[in-house]
């Protein structure tokens, strides 16, 4: 024991002296090859080299797609919508003859809204079920976990509705078919300044949601850049039901609008309590509002407020109306933006599978990367060099039981 402390100090000194900077990994590709090298060293979680493709599934006349999404937990309705949208698209694709004569099948796992479960589900999908492509998730944290695993394994992944920019930065096998948070925050800031001509806005963000925080950051920056003034930023936690304290504080500064980039489950009640406290100003929000439940929870209080979204189910275009009708027939209820985006993501995947010369990961990935002007329900999809979709957003106004289209904001 007497010799323990000096030995420990000596060891530490040795380590500090020996520290050196590692060679910088230049890009995600190099990062993956570093992992591969470590894999051969046997001390890091071994990953198959990037060029390796998962062998085609046992029954060689079906192509298996993997889906991991949150079917339970707080945002269960989003996960369910996503799954429904994907299943509808796959069913239609199979009815139209499948891909190169093969049928498509989908394996869905619930990740309960937790990133470690998402990673586990994806690992299982890739290694046990041998899927050719991954679809999912809605929440960006889960998508980040999934993206890391998919990228390392060389399996392409398309996320239908994760809006955090970091997701596609994980690697060149990761794509998304929706716009990203920086754009959505900008949309509402522009709408508030230019269309509604507001100069003072307050923000009420959901502190438990990365999506909400991301939108708040962008909105506050852009709104001020455009000459507006943010009177204050308050927070609540997803699951709270009493927002009166925050709203009372907001009321004091007398904003002309309140930006509430949260989920429908809270926004409806926030609107009610705001009106109750005498706050008559409109609320502004993002695609997290999109759900039938918004009207039930918000009642008359939420009417007259605006939110940005990916599509409007009222769009008279026949393609969109057909999708709405088909979805209603299959699942009952008007499809929300998540279902539409999932439908689009699945169709992009099917399209890429058709165009790819073989079903290796790299080939499919290259095919997806070439998606340009793909006619999606939630807008035409063109993937830029960062593998994000460059699309316009629509702004909707909340009415009685449904929302009306107001305008489109282009990137």
């Amino acid at each position: 024991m007497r010799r323990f402390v000096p030995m420990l100090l000596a060891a530490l000194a040795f380590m500090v002296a020996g520290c050196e900077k590692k060679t910088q990994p230049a890009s995600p590709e190099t990062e993956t090859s570093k992992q591969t090298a470590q894999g051969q060293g046997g001390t890091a979680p071994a990953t198959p080299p990037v060029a390796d493709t998962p062998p085609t599934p046992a029954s060689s006349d079906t192509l298996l797609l993997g889906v991991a999404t949150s079917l339970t937990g707080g945002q269960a309705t989003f996960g369910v919508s996503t799954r429904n949208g994907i299943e509808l698209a796959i069913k239609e694709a199979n009815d139209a003859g499948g891909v190169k004569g093969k049928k498509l099948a989908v394996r869905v796992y619930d990740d309960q809204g937790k990133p470690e479960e998402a990673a586990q589900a994806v690992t299982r999908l890739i290694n046990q079920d041998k899927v050719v492509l991954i679809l999912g998730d809605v929440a960006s944290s889960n998508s980040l976990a999934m993206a890391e695993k998919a990228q390392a394994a060389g399996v392409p992944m398309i996320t239908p509705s994760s809006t955090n920019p970091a997701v596609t930065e994980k690697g060149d096998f990761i794509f998304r078919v929706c716009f990203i948070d920086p754009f959505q925050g900008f949309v509402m800031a522009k709408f508030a300044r230019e269309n509604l001509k507001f100069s003072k806005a307050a923000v009420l963000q959901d502190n438990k949601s990365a999506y909400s925080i991301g939108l708040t950051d962008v909105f506050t920056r852009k709104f001020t850049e455009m000459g507006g003034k943010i009177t204050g930023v308050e927070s609540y936690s997803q699951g709270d039901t009493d927002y009166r304290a925050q709203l009372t504080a907001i009321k004091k500064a007398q904003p002309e609008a309140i930006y509430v980039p949260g989920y429908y489950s809270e926004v409806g009640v926030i609107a009610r309590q705001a009106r109750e406290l005498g706050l008559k100003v409109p609320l502004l929000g993002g695609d997290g509002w999109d759900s039938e439940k918004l009207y039930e929870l918000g009642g008359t209080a939420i009417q007259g407020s605006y939110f940005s979204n990916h599509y409007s189910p009222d769009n008279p275009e026949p393609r969109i109306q057909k999708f709405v009708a088909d979805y209603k027939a299959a699942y009952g209820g008007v499809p929300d933006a998540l279902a539409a985006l999932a439908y689009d993501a699945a169709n992009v995947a099917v399209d890429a599978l058709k165009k790819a010369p073989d079903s290796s990961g790299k080939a499919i990935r290259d095919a997806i990367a070439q998606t340009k002007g793909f006619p999606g329900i939630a807008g035409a999809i063109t993937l830029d060099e960062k593998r994000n979709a460059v699309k316009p957003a629509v702004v909707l106004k909340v009415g009685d039981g449904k929302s009306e289209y107001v305008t489109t904001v282009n990137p």
Partner: protein
Amino acid sequence: MPGVPPGLRGALPVLIALPVVVVFELLLAGSPFATYLLSIMGVNIILAVSLNIVNGMTGQFSIGHAGFMAVGAYVAGVLSLSLKEIALSFLPVAVSDQVFLLLVLLLGGVAAAVCGFVVGLPSLRLRGDYLAIVTLGFGEIIRVFVQNTEMFGRALGLSGIPQTAGLGMVGFWVFVVVLVARRLAGSSHGRSLWAIREDEVAAEAMGVDTTGYKVRAFVISSFFAGIAGGLFAHFVPIINPGSFTFVKSMEVVVMVVMGGLGSTTGAIVAAVFLTLLPEALRSAFAAMGAEGSLAQKVDQIRMPVYGLLLVALMLLRPQGLFGTKEIWEVLPRWLPRRRKGLA
């Protein structure tokens, strides 16, 4: 053991275990899913065995284990992120990574242990029921703290932590925690803990410094929870507060209670079983062809079933699987006996 120099005797089990776990990891190197699943299982085992020290051996009721796991995970994660670009020049990169991993794990564990001390000291002075609420509250405070701190990634979470925790490291720490738990149970220190569990007033009357022993057990348990969290952060691509909720604490409590409060092997068996159960059910449903809704419902039904399982266990078999005994004491009695004698 004769022939082994005394200084080495204590370290011998660890020295034997090290190559075993490394070999284990290499064997499974080709199967990422098995690796991932076993890593999760290892973390659960560490959590269960460490909680068993407090809930089982000492008879206290701590239901905030996930909070300490979170402390370990975030501290280790943040440290790893800052050390990401550095390596030790005289070692190959892979080994240097493991050395750094060990360092951040220890620091994370120590941070969690400090939290355990801060939380445990005031509440363990009082009646046992208070510990439950305080540990629960602690988990919540940690969550709110992380959500408000940019350095910890707030709600999105901390990603980009070098994924250096392989099965070797996880297996090593599983081994260490089991060793510590077994040694503790069999020592005089452990006997004091059992005494506190059986009758705290009598133990105090017998001269056992109950508060001191309780706090020590709590600190040890929190240390290992922090280790488990640190390991977790190094093989899961991203950690956010959603992974360390009250639900996670409850899952660990279910494992300990099911295995038997006070039985280390019981905790291990229960942890293994409850980790594999959802995956086994998924496979079962897939094999039965009933894909889709039933397999998905499995995860949903799991939680209320855990609740009912606890109730049923308490009503029918409160000692859990093994009670306070270990598997080798219980199993022989379950096996059919060979008749000796004149039969």
